[in-house]
């Protein structure tokens, strides 16, 4: 602010005071909500300006306070900006470019997206990811809810059971996929041996768990078993938040167990369920490690029956060095997850308003 001598200052303060008095009068008679809010804000800023001039400060107190606050956030925000925000924005731009990591970038517009429609591997990856998602989300939710309800009651040793259910989530993925592969080995594993000896399934018809149509089923089963412990804990927290008065009231009205679940437990858990389903959906679309560990063999390559979107993105980016195309696939994945999440948010908002 340019330095003003005393006379100019006085003049300025007078004019601002005049404006202020006018506004205060107008606010009293103003009816429209929005306009009133805007005038009140203006009054506040006029006060600040007058203070500034009177006290000879360059920055008003409020601005100083804001700056201090920003400086506290700055370290984290700068890191976030440089390492997360800017790469994400660049990834969006990359979907319209063609680049192999070393040569100059070229603009190709939507050519990457039109290539997608003709790409067998992309369609296989998309199909597999969607099937996996549709299979895993409901199963995991039901399994974890059932476990939570059972282990919320005073069952003997329920602490041990809760730990056992949670354990797969904590265990190392590489270790448990190795054991899983041993259990389900097509010719030497105990599961197929039981099928062969006890159930009399012919040797040619023994299920090949990690190839062909069954590989997605194996992935779904594995995923449900691994993650149900985690969501069970979330549901337990939700269940413990339901007040027992509601259950008492329900029994007084003659509700049986199923009715209690349907009319008390399930509605009370709606926000927990919402959270669980959103998390599950996002994590299912991101699946990669389970697919590679279970179906990738020694080399970590996936065939069309087990390839998933994130693996295809990696393959296109770092094996074929087609970074633009890979970003286009990533954008498709982003849009899918976004749509699903928006639908769920809308549904939840509607429920809360009702």
């Amino acid at each position, binding site marked *: 602010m340019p330095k003003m001598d005393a006379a100019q200052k006085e003049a300025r303060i007078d004019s601002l005071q005049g404006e202020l008095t006018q506004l205060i009068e107008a606010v009293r008679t103003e009816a429209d909500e929005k306009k009133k809010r805007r005038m009140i804000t203006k009054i506040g800023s006029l006060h600040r300006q007058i203070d500034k001039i009177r006290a000879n400060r360059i920055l008003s107190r409020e601005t100083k306070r804001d700056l201090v606050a920003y400086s506290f956030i700055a370290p984290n925000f700068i890191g976030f900006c440089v390492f997360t925000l800017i790469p994400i924005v660049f990834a969006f731009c990359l979907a319209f470019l063609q680049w*192999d*990591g070393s040569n100059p970038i070229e603009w190709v517009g939507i050519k990457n997206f039109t290539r997608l429609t003709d790409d067998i591997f992309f369609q296989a990856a998309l199909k597999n990811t969607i099937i996996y998602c549709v299979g895993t989300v409901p199963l995991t939710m039901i399994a974890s809810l059932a476990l939570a309800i059972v282990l919320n009651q005073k069952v003997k040793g329920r602490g041990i059971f809760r730990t056992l259910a949670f354990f797969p989530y904590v265990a190392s993925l590489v270790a448990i996929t190795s054991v899983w592969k041993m259990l389900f080995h097509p010719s030497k594993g105990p599961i197929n041996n039981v099928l062969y000896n006890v159930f009399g399934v012919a040797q040619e018809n023994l299920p090949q768990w990690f190839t*062909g149509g069954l590989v997605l089923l194996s992935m779904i089963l594995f995923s449900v078993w691994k993650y149900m412990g985690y969501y069970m804990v979330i549901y337990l927290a939700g269940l413990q938040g339901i007040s027992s008065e509601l259950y008492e009231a329900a029994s007084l009205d003659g509700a049986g167990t199923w009715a209690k679940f349907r009319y008390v437990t399930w509605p009370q858990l709606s926000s927990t369920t919402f959270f669980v389903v959103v998390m599950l959906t996002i994590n299912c679309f991101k699946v990669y490690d389970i697919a590679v560990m279970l179906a990738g063999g020694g080399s*970590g390559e996936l*065939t069309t029956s087990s390839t998933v979107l994130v693996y295809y993105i990696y393959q296109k980016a770092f094996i*074929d060095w087609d970074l633009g195309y890979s970003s286009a696939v990533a954008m498709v994945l982003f849009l899918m997850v976004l749509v699903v999440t928006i639908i769920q948010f809308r549904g939840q908002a509607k429920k809360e308003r009702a």
Partner: protein
Amino acid sequence: MKKKLLSVVLAAAMMSTLLTGCGNDTSNGSSADAPAGGQQSSETTGGQTSAEEVTLKWAIWDQETTQYWGDIKNAYEASHPGVTVEMVDLGSTDYMTVLATELSGSGTDFDVVTIKDVPGYATLVQKNAILALDDYIAADGVDLSQYAGATDQVTVDGKLYELPFRNDFWVIFYNKDLFDAKGVAYPTNDMTFAEYDALARQMTDTTFGSQVYGAHYHTWRSAVQLFGVLDGEHTILDGEYSFFKPYYEMVLNQEADGVARKYSDLKTEGLHYSAAFSGGDVAMLNMGSWFIATMISNLNSGEYDSSLCGNWGIVKYPHAEGVEAGSTLGTITGLAVTTATDTPDAAWDFVKWVSGSEGAAVMASSGNFPAIMTDEVKDMIAGLDGFPTDAESKEALTVSNLYLEVPYAPNVSEINSVLDSYHGSIMTGEISIDEGIEKMNSEVQKILNQ
């Protein structure tokens, strides 16, 4: 007092984990980070001064398990005082992917890189990450004919970007003890595929608990598909793959009859071919000559049980009717100079030395096959302690026609991915052989037409 003590202890624990974290990071980064401090200064001086103190950073894999890297480094440093070779082990799984990522963009300080396979080579050439060596070759008068045509198959638009220093070819390894026990004659150096199949079936014993597998096919597609390129009339770049069919049929029939382990079993277990053969229940294994050095050293060290696989031999690859015996697949490992290096002349000198006759001698001394295969080298390898002593095995080292597993083409990396993917689907039985070949044809045609 207690609270204060606890907080001090926790703070100390946090600091110590922070510092060990830092320490572990740098040591996991590269194998030569212990002299990181000293190396920094020598690198900067190497860039500025002339021929006095030069450090060459060399990308390799499997430093601990493969002997020749260290042998080459020691021999070169001994004969070239003032040059230090610093090896960085990038691991053999995904080696070329890691290398391509490292050489992307700018800021890498690698001078010499080892090229493990041709698709990765094609990628590096397209990314302008490695130098064309033709000027150097002409200036120093390097004779490319000593590589028996291998360099022609990796020339890009008339320019050569790598010099081969290792040249491996595929042979059949067989377990003599198993053949003796069954009273069957050993495989010969001149077998047709029909004879090979019949021999494998003869050797098979499917009794549960004491199985003998007549053959073993590793999960790589080269173990099955590349039987088809041996007549020299087809390559994997054709776009038309019906020539794979008879070999897929042979292998899948063998798997169905218990002659070889099933592909889906191998993929689930991740069983390595070396474990299969050294376990002593595989009669014949088709694999590359690099396995010879592994067999020799592991039998010597006792890692492989010599009662199970100590009595082994090699014979030439089987061939189709009318194809010359000794036609086999080959793969070259080469050295290239990065475009980002600040000592290209010193790097070129190293590449030239390793790919030349001195490097060849060092490779042969540990049982590896250098790119320059002369009779002296063959005698040296055949004379190594542990190499099978029968004449057939020595004869198997003579190659009549060498076809590269993956010849160069600009989009060979994508073609490779497609063929790998459908190979997996065919071998697990997800799709029939005809369907698989059809898909390969259409997908590769798409790539070739791009």
